[in-house]
């Protein structure tokens, strides 16, 4: 295949074009910038906290944001240390190195400090899929960290595959309310104490993001979380990639359907209002938020 712009040897062919290395890298950044502009994700002067796991997605996002917004916005990197031996400690070394070279402030918050237990020990004492508890705790801690660091937005590196997985998972779980909270900005929930989350990579596939990181010499630890692949998300991830191979554009179509539904739901205000958790005072749709419930459960099990 030849690059549709310069006729050079192509490195990828996707919905975003058939492109050589040089034009793919340019296109990737332009898609990020167009997403930010179209959905007004970042305003001049805002403090942007990038949720940084040290993987290809978050490091690519941090690279693009620090390069394009570093002179007009403060970009900080927030890492949640779940306490996964042989995984998170390795990625943290990588993250620190990149944050130093891109002159980005680097902050770490840990489950150990918040819950009193690492993810490794939580999986031993708590039944169920690890990702369920981990996701709740991570979102909670990211919001807390963003508040504490004075961030205006949390930029997460969710890509098109992640978002399509979320759409399908919510669809199969008959959870329209959760589905319409998806999108480039977590827009339908507005509450004091909730730092809006933005997804500048939402219109780029996982493959494009991995290729971008490789071509830019971003040596992210290309190792999945040892707990990844469990449960429903792992199944969805594999199925979506299979479907995309058979029918190019299906991931994007899923997202477009979700966005159309989201617009309708926001207009009709069919979503629940948000109050505050009675324990931690953070935004929650229940009296006690899911993160505090997990904390109570873990500490209860530990003390028995």
């Amino acid at each position: 295949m030849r690059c549709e712009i310069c006729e050079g040897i192509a490195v990828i062919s996707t919905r975003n074009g058939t492109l050589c290395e040089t034009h793919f890298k340019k296109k990737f950044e332009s898609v990020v910038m167009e997403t930010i502009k179209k959905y007004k994700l970042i305003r001049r002067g805002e403090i942007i906290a990038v949720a940084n796991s040290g993987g290809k997605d978050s490091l690519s996002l941090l690279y693009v944001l620090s390069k394009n917004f570093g002179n007009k916005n403060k970009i900080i990197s927030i890492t949640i240390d779940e306490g996964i031996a042989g995984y998170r400690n390795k990625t943290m070394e990588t993250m620190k190195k990149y944050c130093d070279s891109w002159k980005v402030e680097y902050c770490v918050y840990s489950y150990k400090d918040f819950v009193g237990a690492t993810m490794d020990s939580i999986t031993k004492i708590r039944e169920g899929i690890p990702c369920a508890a981990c996701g709740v705790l991570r979102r909670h801690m990211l919001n807390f960290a963003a508040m504490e660091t004075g961030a205006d937005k949390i930029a997460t590196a969710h890509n098109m595959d992640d978002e399509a997985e979320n759409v399908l998972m919510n669809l199969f779980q008959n959870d329209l309310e959760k589905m319409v909270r998806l999108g480039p900005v977590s827009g339908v929930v507005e509450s004091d104490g909730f730092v809006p989350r933005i997804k500048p990579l939402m219109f780029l596939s996982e493959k494009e993001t991995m290729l971008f990181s490789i071509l830019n010499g971003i040596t992210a630890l290309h190792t999945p979380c040892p707990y990844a692949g469990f449960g429903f998300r792992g199944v969805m991830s594999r199925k979506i990639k299979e479907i995309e191979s058979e029918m190019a554009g299906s991931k994007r179509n899923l997202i477009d359907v979700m966005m159309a539904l989201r617009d309708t739901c926001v207009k009709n205000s069919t979503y629940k209002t948000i109050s505050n958790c009675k324990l931690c005072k953070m935004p929650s749709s229940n009296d006690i938020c899911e993160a505090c419930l997990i904390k109570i459960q873990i500490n209860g099990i530990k003390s028995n």
Partner: protein
Amino acid sequence: MISVKVNGLNQKTRKVSLKTGSVNELIGKLNANDDSILIVGEDGKIFTKDRKLRDGSSVSIIEVFSGG
């Protein structure tokens, strides 16, 4: 019929025989799909699925997965 050495998928190295020698054929032989892997040649260049492989050449497979 050509033979190529494949490194990386499931941490294994193996030889695969191909009729047409295309990357697309290789992807099928590996029971993989184009959206979930990157194929890298010996010189580190990324191959698209129409690329023809040489007999005796080596390719590396990088699996695409979510980090986090």
